């Protein structure tokens, strides 16, 4: 396999991982905004872990593949996993406890979050086995126009939009102090509005990614990667 093809494979894997994480965050935001179930403090800590898990692939794509970026994701998975584990054990320790929030495919969301963190950490560890990706002289996607840069910028913008939404919605629930352990349900929005909002975020991120690809400079004359001899 050529060096550029190797790099393409790893970049696609990182983008796919980000899309998977965004799917999980979409589900949690859907529960909050469309269904009206407010996130508990442990849920917010798990969302923070998801954001941290996304930071590693984002840095890989924008800055180039580095072991330290996978390390950030693994640490975030451990941190988020600690919150998920705490929440799972809380509900196991109390006999007859129905759990917090609705179950999806038989598991509560904090159990799915734990699975996500475990898969994320294991995935990063597996990718670290392929040390060849760090010898390709990758400096990230920002220097070349094209579909890879558009896809990267789309998922980065999308992740950032979700981060801002989560940060903004924390304020009415918790203020600047501690969050309530069992927040009251909120007014929800109608599902078609929620679906419309989701499409606005995704298509808006894609449009912004495309626009940034047009506006950002690129080094068209230089090779994308310079293998280290």
């Amino acid at each position: 396999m050529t060096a550029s093809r190797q790099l393409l494979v790893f970049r696609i894997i990182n983008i796919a991982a980000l899309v998977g994480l965004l799917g999980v965050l979409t589900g949690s935001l859907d529960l909050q905004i469309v269904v009206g179930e407010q996130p508990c403090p442990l849920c917010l800590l798990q969302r923070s872990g998801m954001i941290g898990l996304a930071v590693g692939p984002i840095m890989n794509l924008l800055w180039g593949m580095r072991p330290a970026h996978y390390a950030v994701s693994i640490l975030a998975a451990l941190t988020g996993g600690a919150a998920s584990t705490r929440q799972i054990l809380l509900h196991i320790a109390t006999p007859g406890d129905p759990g917090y929030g609705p179950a999806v495919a038989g598991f509560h969301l904090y159990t799915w979050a734990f699975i996500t963190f475990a898969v994320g950490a294991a995935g990063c560890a597996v990718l670290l086995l392929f040390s060849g990706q760090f010898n390709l002289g990758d400096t990230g996607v920002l220097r070349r126009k094209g579909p890879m840069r558009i896809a990267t910028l789309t998922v980065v913008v999308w992740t950032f939009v979700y981060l801002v939404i989560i940060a903004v919605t924390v304020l009415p629930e918790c203020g600047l102090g501690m969050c309530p352990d069992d927040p009251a349900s909120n007014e929800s929005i109608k599902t078609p509005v929620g679906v419309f909002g989701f499409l606005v975020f995704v298509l808006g991120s894609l449009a912004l990614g495309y626009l940034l690809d047009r506006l950002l400079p690129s080094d068209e004359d230089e090779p994308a990667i310079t293998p280290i001899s």
Partner: protein
Amino acid sequence: MMFSMFVLWIVVFAGISRRARWTIPVAVVTMLWSLVLLKLHMTDPIPLNF
């Protein structure tokens, strides 16, 4: 306090956009802060605390 954790992640994103050297240390600090917040929210006296 939870809000401060997400503000720190926004700062990390700003660092990523600027290729700042402090980005990864701030990300690590954010994760440590989230562990502190996790500990602060351990109000239930179950035998699984740390």
